[in-house]
């Protein structure tokens, strides 16, 4: 075996080496300055993102347990890029944190877990990756050490994820019992709709449902998002959700494709309930983090609509949507992070008159909200549109109507926040906030992404090409 055979594994090798190196550095306490840690890790993440542009190496390793393709590499690059943006946005917070090194070790481990999960063709490796991507994040949710809510969030996260993993494992073990193999790609030949298969599929979908917070498995979401530090909220809502959505797409189309007629029905039910409940609850929120939490719950309903497409367009539209969503949600949470760090305020009412006091930040937040609401010319419009165009492949008219009328509901609460920022007066307006340089760069990157990834076509066509 020569060195080039290992190239498909380059993301994972690089990440593992960096994580171990950082552990060693931390043990011997070689770097004491938080800012050095930060710069080091931003550079590392940047390198990982760059790895995504070093050519596509498809291939498999370890007897087919691990495989990679150019499409998977794009997915990993998107996740790494989102992590990079999050690190840049959390610079100021981490600068003063007593446990900064651990933060990075945990965060990068979670990322490594996601990468393994995305490349897994063996269900055990998949499960290992999923757990590796979840448990560190639960520890991270608890990272605001002096806040009780943060511990609560960590606890809720670990309990609910343990529960969902149990469901997932139960389903997996039934599938293993039926097929006698752990290799996911072999399942598609062996699984046909039948009583036991459907039961197993329901358990697995419930497991996935927890991870991407579909209704009725979403109850942990808002509390965890509210309690966690903003960076972790961002990581959970964008990176974790993205990774599991990618994994779900791969699982549905490679593992259980022959049971499509069954899982389309499951997706249909989950999707309409998720969109409707997410939207209706978002209307009632007063805390901006909870507000965004429910809005991301609603967004997940649209991802399911995209998954109703054909085997090429469904993954493509989901990846495209997640990319757009990375920009929009990180722009929104980036602004929330800047504001919350500078003023400690996290309520929607605090954002009244935000446009008058902090014009640039307000414009970024508005762009993000427009994009989340799916209003042209922002990228969110195209992200949603392609989920719809993908979904018509097998979605029913009722599903389409539900999804499109839910756009109206979501418009209501996004526009309400925009109006509050733009035209209401605040008795205690924010002082002009000076955002740190790195988070400013991240916000500019997000805004450029929101404005241009959609309207200049071609990106979707490129992804579609890769997915074939």
């Amino acid at each position, binding site marked *: 075996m020569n060195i080039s055979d290992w190239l498909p594994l380059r993301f994972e090798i690089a990440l593992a080496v960096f994580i171990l190196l950082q552990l060693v550095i931390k043990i011997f306490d070689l770097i004491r300055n938080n800012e050095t840690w930060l710069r080091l890790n931003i550079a590392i993440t940047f390198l990982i993102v760059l790895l995504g542009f070093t050519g596509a190496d498809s291939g498999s390793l370890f007897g087919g347990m691990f495989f990679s393709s150019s499409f998977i590499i794009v997915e990993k690059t998107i996740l790494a890029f989102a992590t990079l943006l999050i690190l840049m946005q959390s610079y100021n917070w981490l600068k003063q944190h007593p446990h900064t090194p651990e933060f990075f070790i945990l965060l990068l481990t979670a990322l490594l877990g996601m990468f393994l999960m995305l490349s897994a063709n063996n269900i055990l490796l998949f499960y290992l990756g999923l757990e590796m991507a979840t448990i560190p994040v639960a520890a991270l949710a608890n990272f605001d050490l002096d806040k009780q809510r943060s511990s609560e969030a960590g606890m809720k996260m670990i309990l609910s994820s343990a529960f969902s993993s149990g469901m997932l494992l139960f389903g997996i073990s039934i599938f293993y019992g039926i097929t006698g193999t752990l290799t996911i790609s072999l399942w598609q030949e062996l699984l046909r709709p039948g009583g036991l298969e459907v039961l197993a599929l329901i358990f697995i979908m419930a497991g996935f449902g927890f991870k991407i917070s579909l209704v009725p498995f979403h109850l942990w979401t808002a509390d965890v998002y509210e309690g966690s530090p903003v960076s972790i909220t961002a990581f959970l809502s964008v990176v974790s959700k993205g990774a599991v959505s990618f994994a779900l797409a791969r699982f549905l189309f490679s593992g259980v494709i022959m049971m499509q007629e069954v899982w389309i029905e499951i997706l249909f039910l989950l999707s309409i309930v998720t969109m409707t409940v997410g939207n209706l609850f978002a209307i009632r929120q007063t805390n901006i983090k909870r507000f965004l939490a429910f809005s991301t719950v609603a967004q997940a309903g649209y991802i399911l609509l995209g998954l109703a497409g054909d085997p090429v367009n469904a993954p493509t539209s989901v990846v495209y949507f997640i990319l757009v969503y990375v920009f929009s949600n990180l722009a929104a949470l980036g602004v929330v992070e800047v504001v919350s760090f500078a003023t400690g305020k996290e309520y929607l009412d605090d954002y009244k008159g935000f446009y008058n006091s902090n014009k640039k930040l307000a414009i970024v937040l508005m762009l993000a909200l427009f994009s989340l609401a799916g*209003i042209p010319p922002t990228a969110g419009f*195209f992200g949603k549109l392609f989920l*719809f165009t993908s979904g*018509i492949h097998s979605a029913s008219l009722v599903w389409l109507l539900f999804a*499109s009328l839910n756009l109206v509901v979501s418009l209501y609460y996004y526009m309400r926040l925009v109006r509050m920022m*733009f035209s209401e007066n605040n008795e205690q307006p924010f002082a002009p906030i000076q955002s740190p340089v790195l988070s400013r760069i991240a916000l500019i990157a997000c805004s450029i992404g929101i404005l241009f990834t959609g309207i200049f076509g071609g990106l979707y*066509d490129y992804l579609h090409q890769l997915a074939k």
Partner: protein
Amino acid sequence: MNLLVLLILVPVVALLLSVFINAEKVKNVILLGAVAELILCFELLREFMLERAAGNNAPYLFEIVYPWFKTWNINFHAGVDGISVSMLLLTSLVTVAAILVSWKVDEKPREFFMMLMLLTAGAVGFFISMDLIMAFFFLELAVVPKFLLIAHWGSGRKVYSATKLALMLMAGSSLILVGTLLLYVQSNGSFDITVLQSLHLDSETQRLIFPLMFLGFGVFTALFPFHTWVPDGHSSAPTAGSMFLAGISMKLGGYGCIRFAAILLPEGTQYYSSAIILLSTIAIVYGAFATLMQKDIKYINAYSSVSHCGFVLLGIGMLNQTALTGAVLQMISHGLMTALFFGAIGMIYSRAHTRDVRELGGLLKIMPFIGSIYIIVGLCSLGLPGLSGFVSEMTIFMGAWQVPGTFHKVATILACASIVVTAVYILQAVAKVMLGPVKDSHFLTLTDATWYERSASWLLMLAIIIMGILPMWLAQMISHETAPMAIKFLTVNS
């Protein structure tokens, strides 16, 4: 460069420029952009008429296609016919007038004028779209500006009205989205209206998709019972906002009903035509009577818009060439007329600070220019010959009367009769607001129109008069396009 691309680029450039210049000067740039747009539209009209005169009978002229999203076969496909050209003219005229009328807006002027321009960009893009997704893109582009214009610069129950308007219009668009997607499936993957037009969909599919598209666009043009955003939205909006909403935005719906619902799904149109006629007749009669009850001059005009836009839908429902031509003429006439009406009301309100008919009086003596505008446009609204309203309504009635059958005759008679009610409320309003004694001594100190208000009024008034006296060129341009439509509707069943 293709004229149609220029039409899109001019507002975009104006918008980009206005981000970078001094907030006080933004209005100059935006006005310049709007005037450039107006000139381009006249140039387009000239070239279009020359082409047609030279015998170019292609259904769409100046077509241009750029691929946008190849995977989905979504293209930037622009092209115009006589209907689009007249709509573009209307849009650019109203835009210039609306910008002039709001010359003295000093609350967040940069954002205000940028939103006006964004609305124009959306409308212009919509009128030249030949791809359903492109049309949808431009239609949705206007959601935020409409919402914020009302919610921030409006008056009265502005937040309520803005939210109601945005949600109802968005609900309309979401129906359009579903309809569009279903058409995409039926056509094996095309959003292009030239492709969709040549499809022969079976009648069941047409009956399924048509209501989605027609109701969706119908919401925009105040189709009964989805008209309730109109009175609230129009009366809460700032003057320029009302001019836009009534003058352009409602026409997006009418145009969409014709271009993206009726032509694409002729059998569906035929099947539902009695329902369309029924709903539009209700809107006409109900709108007229509801107007009688109003005490606020802005509400008077808003409710009368419901009634007048009913004529547009009535013309579409009658399915013959004359009525369809009348429907398009009515869109133009109503657009110009209400824009001017709202402009005049805005001028009165900004001086007298009340819109209540009972408090106003004798304004003609105090502000003769504004008063005369108000009276002229009122006469246009009740269909006085020589002004645009007469031409368009007369055409619709003539077309409608040609359709045999008791139901159609009754609808036509009812619609005609509503003109009497129109005369009542218009003359009442004119009498109370303009004539009679001055009710408040502070009115005596008010001044007449300023230069920018005068130029805006003249612009629209000239258009109304020209359309009233010389309608033939416009009617011919439009009927050239409506003739094949009417034939299509006729041949559906045979």
